[in-house]
């Protein structure tokens, strides 16, 4: 690689990283769907998909083939450009935010971090910004479908996401105050000193912030118990009523990609990212070689996996909120508590930090 300039190395590695992260994210999305169907099945005392391949493991492939081969219906009265643009916005925004996530310990090769696509010093703000752009995907899909159920779904969803974005953003301020930085890598590093004890959720006393984040994130991703935008008992299928084939699949993938992003951010901000929970207890093992590089990724993946399981568990357990309850919960409960949390964290840091 000596004949390549620094910029060429950077460009090549970045393209390779983007491709790998994209493939892994999309595969994870497909298998999260399978995981959800399996776990939900077990929660409801049935098997879930079990026919395609061993334990139903090829089910995502079959689903993908089915969605590809379906006829792409487009109703006559839709607003064509926006109808096509909406699922693209939704999926693109869901996939872009994964690029800020540091997946492993900082490992540099010719000055390029191997386990993070982009280390930006306002990474957290970028994720919040992209999430807020993602609202347009849902809003426009409902409006352009020219269907009252779609419009109601997207109106609900827009109002819900705008309201819960506030609580979501405020719940993260405590973490930012503790880390003193908006870069996700710095936030992870600020929790790396004593393993589990220095994670923000335990040692940092940000458990209030964590629970606010968790609930706001469920609402942001339109997941149960806040899945009012697609409440099938009231709105047929909500904002994607008129969508079929790959366009529907894009919304579906966007929802699960958002789930994964939210789980990644929760891991990074509150659970130490790719750090080990044991701190320096086992630091004499695996100091070199492949395991040393891969172990942080395994920690990261297991934490994200735990969050995904929690998502599915909540979906299988809790009933759906009513709409006024949802709004009241966001504005009258989560928002004040988030502000108190910021004040308490700032005071504690001012006196001790």
């Amino acid at each position, binding site marked *: 690689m000596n004949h390549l300039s620094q910029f060429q190395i950077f460009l090549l590695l970045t393209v390779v990283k983007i491709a790998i992260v994209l493939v892994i994210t999309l595969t994870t999305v497909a298998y999260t769907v399978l995981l959800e169907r399996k776990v939900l099945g077990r929660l409801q005392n049935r098997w879930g998909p079990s026919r395609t391949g061993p334990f139903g493991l090829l089910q995502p492939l079959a689903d993908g083939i089915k969605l590809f081969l379906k006829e792409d219906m487009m109703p006559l009265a839709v607003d064509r450009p926006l109808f096509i643009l909406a699922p693209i916005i939704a999926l693109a925004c869901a996939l872009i935010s994964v690029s800020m996530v540091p997946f492993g310990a900082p490992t540099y090769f010719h000055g390029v971090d191997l386990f993070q696509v982009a280390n930006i*010093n306002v990474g957290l*703000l970028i994720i*919040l*910004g992209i*999430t807020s*752009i993602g609202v347009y995907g849902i809003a426009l899909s409902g409006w352009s479908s020219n269907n009252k159920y779609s419009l109601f779904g997207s*109106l609900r969803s827009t109002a819900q996401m*705008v309201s819960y974005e506030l609580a979501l953003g405020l719940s993260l301020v405590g973490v930012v105050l503790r880390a003193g930085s*908006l870069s996700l890598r710095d936030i992870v590093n600020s929790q790396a000193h004593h393993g589990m004890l220095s994670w923000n959720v335990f040692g940092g006393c940000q458990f209030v912030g964590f629970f606010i984040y968790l609930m706001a994130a469920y609402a942001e991703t339109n997941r149960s118990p806040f899945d009012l935008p697609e409440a099938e008992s009231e709105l047929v299928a909500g904002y994607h009523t008129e969508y079929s084939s790959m366009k529907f699949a894009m919304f579906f993938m966007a929802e699960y990609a958002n789930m994964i992003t939210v789980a990644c951010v929760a891991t990074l901000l509150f659970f130490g990212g790719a750090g080990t929970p044991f701190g320096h207890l086992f630091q004499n093992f695996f100091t070199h070689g492949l395991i040393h590089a891969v172990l942080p990724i395994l920690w990261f993946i297991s934490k994200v996996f735990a969050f995904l399981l929690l998502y599915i568990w909540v979906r299988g357990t809790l009933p759906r909120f009513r709409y006024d309850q949802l709004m009241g919960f966001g504005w009258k409960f989560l928002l004040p508590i988030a502000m108190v949390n910021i004040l308490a964290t700032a005071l504690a840091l001012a006196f001790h930090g």
Partner: protein
Amino acid sequence: MQLALFIIFGLVAIAGALNLLFQRHPINSALSLIVVMMSLAVLYWSLGAEFLAAAQVIVYSGAIMVLFVFVIMLLNAGEEERTHGSRIAYIAGIPGAGAIFCLLSFVFLSERTQLGTTQLGGYLSSAVSNITEISHILFTSLLLPFEVTSILVLVAILGAVVLARKEL
């Protein structure tokens, strides 16, 4: 690289602004405005103001424009009808816009030394975060204007609540 970014997104911003004017459906105009704001964010970024860029995306294109789109969707606003506007607008519009453009570029070019210069992407290569500096200035020398603005926003919120309440 930075120059290429500047040219591309400057052109995108201008094209979006023109599209905003020429589109006849309000929702298309609102979407063009979002494009303008996003490309302005990229321009801020290329000048080294990454916090401003992120705030632009979150506040303007993420929150304010969502409300615009929301209202347009709720009101179910139809296409605008072409009318023959006032004659003054036809006569004075384009020369007026040209005059303002000339005036602004004259002021900026003649007062270049007083305004100070920044290099395109000059701050991007160094790893200094300007968030710390912004917050420091905001909470020390600019504290009074900052708080007065917050009170102004609070008054606006209270006014909206008073207007929106049914019985009072």
